[in-house]
């Protein structure tokens, strides 16, 4: 059934034949990628370089062009213009051999209802020349106990894990996951993230799209924030947050009354103010200066606080700072 070495550990610790992770060229490079559907521009001159061995996040709201980019990456769509190089190859040269090096999960795929989890993964494994042992893949995806269960009996999270298992079973160098955690609760997203990362631990490269900012921040070595078909920022989550003028955020909820944004902006060290869900979000540079000053302002206005939190700025704050628009991940 399997061509893998008998030693199961070799599987878990083994690296890919093509040299060490650091010595390889980029896993993916996109140059001035454009995709138009009639008048609609889905991808607008996108440049990206994804390094071998990293977990790279395509981050952005729904409709930003992430799925189109991924479908071009995996050769399911032709770009209108631009260059795509994946694992050193172009689509249209030897697609089958390129596909055998890539594992893919797409959004909203539903598997045949009356096949068991192990049967589906075995089927997908059979397509690949160097398929992995099904049980070890199921263990990695956290589905070992569901091996003999019909896919129709799986929960939403388990289905996403099955999609991941199908992407992993071909022993790919490059794992491409389109919104693998959409619709999962935060707990399930957390567990799912850990399963993905085991692929990186084996030296593989991951490209994952998500509209959950906190997930990208937690999982990805580097992210590209995609907005309206363009990459508006690329870098590690830390770098992107650090690039903000102010990388701390004070979240304030007033018990009663209100204060105008202008007054807040005039407080020393405040870089910007925005409002979300009844919260005042005040971006600040130095907490020790600005937080006491803010409290003074509220005191002089006789405003009482329901809640005040100081937190690190997140990728969401980066998105808002760059686009001037609120981020909605719905």
């Amino acid at each position, binding site marked *: 059934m399997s061509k893998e070495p008998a030693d199961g550990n070799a599987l878990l610790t083994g690296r890919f034949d093509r040299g060490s992770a650091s010595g390889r060229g980029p896993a993916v490079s996109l140059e001035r990628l454009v995709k138009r559907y009639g008048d609609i521009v889905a991808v607008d001159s996108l440049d990206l370089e994804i390094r071998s061995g990293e977990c790279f996040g395509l981050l952005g709201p729904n409709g930003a062009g992430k799925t189109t980019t991924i479908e071009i990456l995996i050769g*399911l769509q032709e770009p209108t213009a631009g260059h795509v190089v994946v694992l050193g190859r172009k689509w249209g040269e030897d697609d089958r*051999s390129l596909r055998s090096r*890539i594992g893919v999960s797409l959004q909203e*795929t*539903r*598997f*045949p209802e009356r096949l068991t989890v192990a049967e589906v993964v075995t*089927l997908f*494994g059979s397509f*690949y020349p160097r398929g992995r042992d099904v049980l070890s893949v199921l263990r990695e995806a956290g589905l070992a106990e569901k091996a003999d269960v019909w896919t129709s009996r799986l929960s939403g999270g388990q289905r996403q894990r099955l999609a991941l298992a199908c992407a992993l079973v071909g022993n790919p160098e490059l794992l491409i996951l389109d919104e693998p955690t959409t619709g999962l609760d935060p707990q399930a997203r957390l567990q799912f993230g850990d399963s993905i990362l085991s692929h990186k631990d084996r030296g593989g490269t991951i490209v994952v799209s998500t509209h959950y900012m906190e997930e990208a921040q937690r999982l990805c070595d580097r992210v590209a924030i995609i907005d309206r078909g363009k990459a508006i920022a690329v870098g590690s989550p830390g770098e992107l947050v650090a690039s903000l003028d102010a990388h701390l955020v004070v979240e304030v909820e007033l018990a009663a009354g209100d204060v105008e944004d202008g007054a807040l902006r005039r407080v020393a060290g405040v870089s910007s103010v925005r409002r979300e869900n009844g919260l005042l979000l005040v971006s600040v540079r130095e907490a020790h200066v600005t937080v006491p000053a803010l409290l003074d302002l509220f005191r002089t206005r006789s405003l009482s606080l329901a809640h005040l939190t100081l937190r690190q700025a997140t990728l969401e704050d980066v998105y808002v700072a760059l686009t001037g628009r609120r981020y909605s991940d719905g």
Partner: protein
Amino acid sequence: MASPLRQLVLARLRESLRHPETIFWTFVFPILLAVALGIAFRGERIDPVRAVVVDAPGAEEIARGLRADSTVRVEVLSRAEADRLLRTGRTAILVLPGDPLLYRYDPTRPDSRLARERVDRALQAAAGRTDPLRASDSLVTEPGARYIDFLVPGLLGMNLMGGGLWGIGWVIVEDRIRKLLKLQLATPMRKRDFLLAHVLARLLFVPLEVVPLLFLSWLAFGVSSSGSLLSLAAVATGGALSFAGLGTLLASRARTTATISGLINLATFPMIVVSGVFFSVSRFPGFLQPLFRALPLSALVDGLRGVMTDGAQLATLWPQFLVMGLWGTLCFVAALWLFRWT
């Protein structure tokens, strides 16, 4: 790792056999249909025709004359009631007393035309006509010549058609809706293997679609094949391949299950009517017959009937194989060209 083709075929078989509706449509439904039709047309006695004599002077005498004939069931009713029964098809003919007698019936109804002959014969006999020629009936209910013997090959053909179109067409469209086709396209899977797996899975289903129906019609009605079972298997396989091609073609573009079921019904219903499943194609006007005989279901049913009733040798069935082969090949080629994976 096992071969992709084998895994794809296995997946198809598992999916089908684990769906109770497959079992119903493949095995139970054709058998129920055969039983129902076999009982309805068992043909062991001559069914009486219904005639109504309109109540008027002389009606009773006419009725008495008709009652003497066991093949006519007669009632005397008022004109209004009689008209109503004729209009609603519950009597085949009205007899209006008078001179001359008047037969009132719908000439497009075969049973009415039959009733007119029987009623007239009975009344002429009652009035004293004697037949110059003596004749008696010998009723044939020998296996091989009954309606059920005609019907079983038709049902087999219909079953193979349904299996091919629904079994391939519906499943491919479902996979497209589930985005499973798209996902498989992103793997190194060969498209050829995918389509071939559907065809092979269909071939493995042929014995399941043919054997139980054949066995039960033998058990219940004594239907048997005068030709060899091997020839029968060859014709059935030809039909299955032909409809596998048509099923793939119908599914090549459809993006919703409503579209594919519409297309399949559009393809199957006319064929069930004109391809000789329930009655012979020779009932249609001569100029239409070559057209209808060029349909894949006609070729399949003709072939099956040729083997089962006439004991035909395969070589003599080449026109049927040609028709099935052309349909299968052309549809498959067109399907490959049109096929929408995403």
